[in-house]
């Protein structure tokens, strides 16, 4: 042991890498790749990416995905999975839209409705997974079917919400001073983000702190890392798993409402594929499905990387839809192989 330490001492960088936890190492890789990619786009693709607004519009479009991915990261850290979030998003947008438009309800109640739907799914799925010990994949698969089916039962045709107060809230923009740009016509356009982005950022910060410093947050990691030893430590494993799914459901509720705020319509197709995008983002952000490893900050950058690469592909002139799918998959492949190689090398030392 001592000889090993002396041999590795001169190599400071390597030693630093070795002392890093898996979580931090993967986080560093994610952030580095995101910046390399984005700076590359700024250099090679020119004006669009040099404007700060490009970055903010990526945030605007994907605020709901950030919230959903945070929820998925938490269940993935506890070695579980939830593939129902996309369906829940669709259900929430449809229910809220119908409530606001046909029933003339107010916006605050629709927010409560969204949270209630999310929590109900979380509660139900969490109970089945944690206390009845049923495979999370199957339970949340059923949850996804249920949510998608219920959406079409509520209403099949997509429609835009005309409720005045809601539209006012939807169009509320947070202006970011000093980062705007001047159009060709010589008009100055402010850089802005939507309310949803603010919500998403608050969620990221709160969850980051929670996972890092609260008892519950540490319990998630302990249960995901090894539930047997977590049990030995006196952690209520079932309760922890249940809470993870409950939290994921709540976040799906928030994410669904953020999505609703962004698109402003109820549609069956809302949030389609969101569950897989959220899982992909969490993985790119360094969360591992084997549990116990992951970080909300990584997830945040994971969503940004995924959305940025889509934007880059479409701005680079490959407008055929199939390029996006292939590039995103290639990037996912790259990240996964980097992760697996890095972890394997660390284990060897």
């Amino acid at each position, binding site marked *: 042991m001592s000889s090993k330490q002396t041999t590795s001492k001169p190599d400071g960088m390597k030693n630093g890498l070795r002392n890093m936890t898996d979580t931090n190492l993967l986080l560093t890789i994610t952030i580095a790749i995101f910046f390399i990619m984005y700076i590359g786009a700024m250099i090679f693709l020119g004006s669009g990416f040099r404007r700060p607004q490009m970055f903010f519009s990526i945030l605007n479009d994907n605020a709901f995905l950030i919230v959903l991915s945070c929820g998925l990261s938490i269940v993935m850290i506890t070695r579980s*999975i939830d593939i129902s979030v996309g369906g829940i998003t669709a259900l929430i947008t449809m229910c809220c839209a119908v409530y606001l438009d046909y029933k003339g309800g107010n916006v605050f109640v629709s927010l409560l409705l969204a949270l209630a739907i999310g929590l109900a799914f979380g509660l139900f799925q969490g109970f*089945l997974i944690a*206390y*009845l*010990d*049923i*495979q999370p*994949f*199957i*339970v949340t*698969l*059923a*949850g*996804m*079917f*249920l949510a*998608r*089916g*219920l959406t*079409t*039962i509520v209403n*099949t045709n997509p429609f835009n919400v005309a409720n005045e107060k809601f539209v006012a809230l939807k169009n509320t923009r947070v202006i970011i001073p000093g980062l705007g740009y001047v159009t060709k016509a010589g008009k100055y356009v402010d850089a802005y983000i939507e309310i949803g982005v603010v919500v998403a950022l608050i969620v990221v910060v709160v969850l980051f702190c929670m996972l890092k410093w609260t008892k519950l947050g540490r319990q998630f990691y302990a249960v995901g890392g090894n539930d047997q030893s977590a049990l030995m430590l006196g952690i209520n494993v079932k309760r922890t798993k249940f809470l993870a799914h409950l939290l994921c459901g709540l976040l799906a509720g928030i994410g669904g409402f953020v999505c609703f705020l962004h698109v402003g319509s109820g549609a*069956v197709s809302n949030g389609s594929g969101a569950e*897989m995008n959220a*899982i*992909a983002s969490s*993985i790119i952000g360094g969360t*591992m*499905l*084997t549990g116990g490893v992951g970080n909300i900050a990584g997830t945040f950058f994971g969503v940004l990387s995924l959305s940025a690469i889509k934007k880059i592909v479409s701005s680079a002139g490959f407008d*055929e*839809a*199939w*390029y*996006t*799918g*292939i590039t*995103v*998959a*290639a990037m*996912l*492949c790259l990240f*996964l*192989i980097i*992760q*697996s*190689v890095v972890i*394997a090398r660390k284990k060897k030392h």
Partner: protein
Amino acid sequence: MGATKTNNGNIFSKLIKQQLFIPLAALLILIIFNLIMDPSFLKITLGYNNIGNPVLSGYIIRILDNGSEVAILAIGMTLVTAASGGQDISVGAAVAIAGSVLLRVLCGSNTHPETLQAPIIVGFLVSCLVAMLFGAFNGVLVAYFKIQPMVATLILYTAGRSIAAWVNNNELPIISEASFGYFGGYIPGIPVPTPLIIAVACMVAIGLVLKFTNLRLYTQAVGINESSSKLNGLNPQLIKLLSFVILGICVAVVGLIKVSRNSTINYSVIAKDIEMDAILAVALGGNALGGGKFSMAASIIGAYVIQLLTTTLFKFKVPSDALPAYKAVVVIILVVISAPVVREWFSSMIKKFQTKEVA
């Protein structure tokens, strides 16, 4: 009365522990339910279709016909689940690729060929090879890079339909050749739908393989404990890879049936969500999704349970969009009943009941 009940109870609790119990019970309940609602449910009639070929028709035939794809995929999915302890979520996308390659070979550069550019068997073999290669790609990621199956196959899930569109330059070739339609319809003179024949052939093939080779033993050994199987001289990575390649063959067969049914392909719709049905079939069969022991028969029955459920719901005029919701409710009931915790609770309830009876 009391004595017989105790006896029954014993048999019942033994029966409950059988893996085949849940899928068979679900199948029976659904059939009985259908029979009550519609006494002609089991009726099979021999008629003639519009070309004048003899065909069997009836609900049961339709269920067996439409359930073939999921049943074939369930075979491969069971092996993958058992060996790797995870699921392949890319099969739907892989079916799209296999179908697209098949059409590409058969049609050449022409999208509406009068005659086929290559024999169907050549097209099938090429698509089979491609599907096996994609299976091997997944397998290598899972076995050698040690990525969790669901994550590894997420790559192909994302890219698959795009690749399928790219293979045919995003065009939709249509085959008018009648013999191509045999695989998804009827061969003249044979009244049984061809997909059913193909599915049975696949089942017989896998049954023979499991009977005469060590595949079952090796797969279960790897699934139960990878490192101890290695200590016993197995190569766990190779077995995992093999299971994904076998799934690739299943995918190619399903691709042939799916494309033949429509004589064309729609990249974003073909075999959509079929991976979910295939995984569901494995789960309904009572196989552990975490790997290890498996029952192929149970998975296949699970596949037909899903199809029976779908057909039943259609019969009750449930709109196809709302179908998933009802399906989900039934699935939840099934998995809750088959959950070990609930089963134990049932067994203890039965025991309590027995002691009360005796007292």
